[in-house]
């Protein structure tokens, strides 16, 4: 076991899965010699020169090609350089990848992974800080996974690659090099659709994923909070959420994305439908502002701050 960061953990998972299954191929912009702009694929083209392909600058083409590869029998892992450039692939994902199994009544499927860095935190140019995970959660047939640590990044990516259906794998840019932890060399998989109770507690359930999980953990001092890392947003772990909400009776949902129609809206509605009578307080969302994600200078005003999270926790505790 070695202490590694998320970039290294994802690199390890890709390399091991390519070793294990010769049908796993990588495509994307600059994923070859350059090793990807975040160096996620560093060193892999030297090991697997015939299975890693730099593509022209064409995101819709990348995902569309991956769909064809997957239907034919490969296991493509496509990299979209930043989430801000994935929107060109919405048609391929929503009109094709998500429904090929259904439309062909199981004759064809699309076992591919689309990986992309996402979220704020590195103060890059415009459109490099997107967190529109809810868009993809709104596509039946697509799974959406968000790791929050090197350890779970490796295990979740392994599951995503082995999954029989298309998976959008969102890597929080801010966490790429922020945390190092022990990650086993040995193969392990973390199932998709299961949440992780990071910390048990009795007074309030806090739901988060990706980089916001860490901001939550920095904010809960003094609260008896149960913190749940969803890890997989679609499908999400209804059972774990309900068990916790029934125990605590209070819920705070924290995400970086804009509040309106963010994934917190789905969670909040689900909790209202299934556990309303267990609630002691209204469900509170702490989310990005109802605005376009600002550039670097104003970025800190946009996403949930520690102060805003604490305010929300105090608010639900008033009940």
């Amino acid at each position, binding site marked *: 076991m070695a202490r590694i960061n998320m970039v290294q953990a994802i690199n390890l998972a890709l390399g091991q899965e390519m070793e294990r299954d010769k049908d796993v191929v990588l495509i994307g912009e*600059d994923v070859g010699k350059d090793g990807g*702009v975040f160096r996620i694929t560093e060193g892999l083209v030297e090991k697997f020169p015939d299975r890693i392909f730099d593509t*022209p600058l064409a995101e819709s083409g990348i995902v569309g090609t991956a769909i064809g590869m997957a239907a034919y029998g490969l296991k493509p892992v496509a990299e979209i350089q930043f989430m801000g450039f994935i929107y060109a692939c919405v048609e391929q994902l929503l009109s094709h990848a998500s429904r090929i199994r259904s439309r062909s009544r199981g004759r064809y499927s699309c076992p591919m992974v689309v990986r992309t860095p996402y979220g704020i935190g590195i103060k890059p140019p415009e459109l490099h800080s997107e967190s529109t995970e809810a868009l993809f959660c709104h596509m039946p047939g697509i799974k959406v996974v968000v790791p929050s640590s090197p350890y779970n990044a490796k295990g979740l990516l392994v599951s995503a690659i082995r999954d029989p259906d298309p998976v959008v794998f969102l890597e929080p840019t801010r966490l790429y090099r922020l945390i190092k932890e022990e990650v086993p060399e040995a193969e392990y998989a973390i199932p998709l659709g299961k949440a992780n109770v990071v910390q048990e507690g009795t007074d309030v359930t806090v739901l988060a994923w990706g980089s916001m999980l860490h901001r939550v953990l920095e904010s809960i001092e003094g609260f008896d909070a149960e913190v749940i890392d969803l890890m997989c947003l679609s499908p999400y772990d209804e059972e774990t959420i309900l068990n916790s909400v029934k125990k605590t009776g209070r819920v705070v949902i924290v995400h970086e994305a804009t509040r309106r129609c963010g994934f917190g809206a789905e969670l909040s509605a689900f909790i209202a439908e299934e556990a309303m009578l267990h609630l002691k307080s209204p469900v509170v969302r702490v989310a990005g502002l109802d605005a376009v994600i600002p550039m670097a200078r*104003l970025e800190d*005003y946009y996403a949930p701050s520690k102060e805003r999270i604490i305010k929300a926790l105090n608010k639900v505790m008033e009940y």
Partner: protein
Amino acid sequence: MPENIIEKFEIKHLQILDEKGNADTAILPNLSDNDLKKLFELLILSRQFDQRALQLHAEGRLGTYASILGQEASQIGSAYALEKTDWVFPSFREMGVYITLGYPIWMLFQYWTGDERGMKTPDDLNIFPVSVPVGTHTPHAVGAAFAAKIKGHKTAALSYFGDGGSSKGDFHEGLNIAGVHKLPVVFICQNNQWAISLPREKQTASKTIAQKAYSYGFEGIQVDGNDIFAVYKATKDALEKAKAGGGPTLIECFTYRMSDHTTADDASRYRPKEDVETWKDKDPLLRLKLYMQKKGIWTQSYEDDVKKKATEFVDSEIKKEEAAGLPDSKDIINYTYKDLTQRQKKEIKEIA
């Protein structure tokens, strides 16, 4: 039935000014000595801006920045051919275009610090904000040209993008619409041979980018992108043609990205140093200088003076940017719609 050839195309490469500063007088565009000096001064100014931007980035005062080094002739030569009323749709590596058109330099610095205010184009210019999603803005130029045509204005639109941008679907959709409707639009591809780590020959199997125009029924031409005269002439001709109802043109400026892709990139990972060396001889500034020297309108003291003024001017613009201070956090919300939504009215109080 025999097979007949039903369509043929040929791609021209235009060079007027060679590396030694010799010009082909037969096709030399009509530029006065004053114009030549202006072009020279713009080349120096843009380069000074670029160098300072890189320095400021190194000092942590600017965010990720994309250098224009080596591409100045493609940018300044083409922008110099524009009229104030024309519309321009740039990508992110066109600071030389902005500077040529008179965009306030301090605002360009402001943008690259990560401040939206820097992209609030002054009212007397028609330049769209930088397009970060590569190639996706090409149809916007097509639309603006369409609008100009519908309104009966004698205005053209011009779109800038790179060799990488020519691979995007939006590029092809835009060009196709422009061809079908014969719109007054000029597409300028700065083929700088690289899209981050991807060399030009892996971007497209076509021999040139210029030839893609023929698939959409209009003319494409490749020009020496480090030859400011060739770029200027091709753009001027294309704009005149566009305004006369002759439809679109694609101009491929054959140039070279002398720097890393951006300040976040390390080109030594994928690009041989020798390649860069060979392009140093083709420097666009050197070429114009040699030409002007032969013409007797360049002296060392003139160049020293131009450089000194450029340095001072850029420094004063940096000061201006600093004096502008921090943006107002409420502006994150203020410009989402024309009017605030009910929720935004609450949020704006919370962040104030």
